[in-house]
């Protein structure tokens, strides 16, 4: 009727992945509902656990399709391929909490707070939150990521590829939004006196 879409347009919107096709058999328990989603993929971490006070939060928000959000959720909850305890999210958390600012005076100041799916009407926001116990400059933050990813790539290529795949899902979207939020009560008074001296180390 209207709004015809071609595979090229859908690929441009969602990206190209490994071709997948399969028979879809409707369910019989709910009036022949079509199973668009696989069962058994649990929800990602449901709460934020923070040890120590935070000075800032980096919020990475990607507006994704339901399928895209589901793919992120699946990635987060997939068990680690080597059979060790934990999920892909465990590795992502370790990279952020232990890899960012490693070997610098800011080592240990980053906290992986979680990845959350925020439901909207037509789209779904996937929000990755990183806490920082000390405020840092934008350049320091970018450098920390570059170094952490390079170190991860050198140490374990398979692990790096896994983490890169989810970052690509979140960051390759045109409408990803990164916000840096200073939490004033964590580092000073409500007018931000201790912030006025500038970011730590910078």
């Amino acid at each position, binding site marked *: *009727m209207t*709004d015809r879409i071609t595979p090229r347009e859908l690929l441009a919107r969602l990206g190209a992945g490994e071709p997948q096709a399969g028979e879809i*058999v*409707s*369910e*019989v*328990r*709910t*009036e*022949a*509902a*079509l199973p*668009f*989603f696989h*069962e*058994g*993929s*649990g*929800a990602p971490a*449901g709460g934020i656990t923070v040890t120590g006070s935070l000075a800032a939060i980096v919020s990475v928000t990607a507006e994704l399709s*339901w399928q895209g959000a*589901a793919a992120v959720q699946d990635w987060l909850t997939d068990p680690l391929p080597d059979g060790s305890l934990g999920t892909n999210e465990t590795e992502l958390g370790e990279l952020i909490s232990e890899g960012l600012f490693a070997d610098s005076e800011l080592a240990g100041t980053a906290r992986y707070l979680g990845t959350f799916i925020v*439901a*909207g*009407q*037509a789209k779904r926001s996937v929000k990755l939150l990183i806490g920082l116990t000390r405020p840092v400059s934008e350049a320091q933050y970018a450098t920390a990521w570059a170094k952490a990813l390079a170190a991860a790539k050198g140490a374990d290529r398979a692990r790096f590829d896994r983490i890169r795949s989810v970052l690509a899902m979140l960051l390759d979207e045109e409408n990803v939004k990164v916000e840096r939020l200073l939490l004033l009560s964590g580092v000073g008074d409500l007018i931000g006196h201790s912030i006025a001296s500038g970011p730590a180390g910078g």
Partner: protein
Amino acid sequence: MQPAFANPVLETPPKISISITEACPHACAHCYSDCARAPKAGELSIPAWRRVIDGLTEEGFIQAYFEGGEPFAKPGFLDLIETTAPRMMTLVRTKGAGLDAAVADRLAAARVGRVLVDLMGADAATHDATAGAAGAFDQAIAAIGHCVARAIPVDVLVVLTRSTAPQLNAILALAHGLGAERVGILRLYPLGRAKAIWGGIALPLADQMAALAALAPPPGLKVMQSWHPRDQNCCWQAAALNAFGDMIGCQYLREYVNYGNIRDRPYLDAWRNDPLYKQIRSGNVEASCPDCSGSQRSHGGCRSTAFAFHGRWEAPDPFDVTLNDGVDLAVLPDRLR
């Protein structure tokens, strides 16, 4: 304000359920449509259904699920199947009445995708007592055999009641032995004649969960159920027509909603513009079970049973153990009696 919960959003629905008639040769004690042997006045004719199928095809529907009443009691139903199956994945739910070898031949030739047969017990005595018709069990068993023999995939459906609960495993074994691929265990809905006998056939939730926990399906038989932790709010993809052409979203909402008649209004118009339809699909509910929403990607569970027991579209589904909140499912609210 953004709702607390939201279901997946389909711009247009890909599948539809069609209750083709409210005629049925059986007299099932819990019949949701209060069927009679003769079609009811105002049911759409087969030529009218052909036009409806044409329109639904144009609107993008790619799967049609026919049920009744008893679909094979509708004169001309097979003709309709033969015009539908080349365009849509076609499923037929039946009690087996009228599905003899000749009919099965036509279903196979028409390329019907799947036949779903209701069993109301694992033996003739139990089944026939509920169906209100001697020989109903034998008809159902024969219908399964006719389809399996022609390589038409068959599922068995069973409604969980006081009489079927003790026989569930026997029904699973029977279905498997007959060649069914899957068994769907369905909840009992307070609709039609089921309301009048509710206290005699409905189980408390704890007993329902115990019956499900005791399931021991034979290897290779897939069993599907819609209780915790797989309580789905499938309204987000639900489209349905009753025998009169009324758009009702889901067959289990038949007593609660009417979005207009398909002869007066395209289905997509109702889908896109009816405020109640949009509200019911939205998943904007008061409470969501984390386990069920995690596995099903939808919130609040079945809207029909939620509305039946609470009278609110946003209410939690009392068939979910985490959302039940003390509702006794063996007792109907006064409103429904």
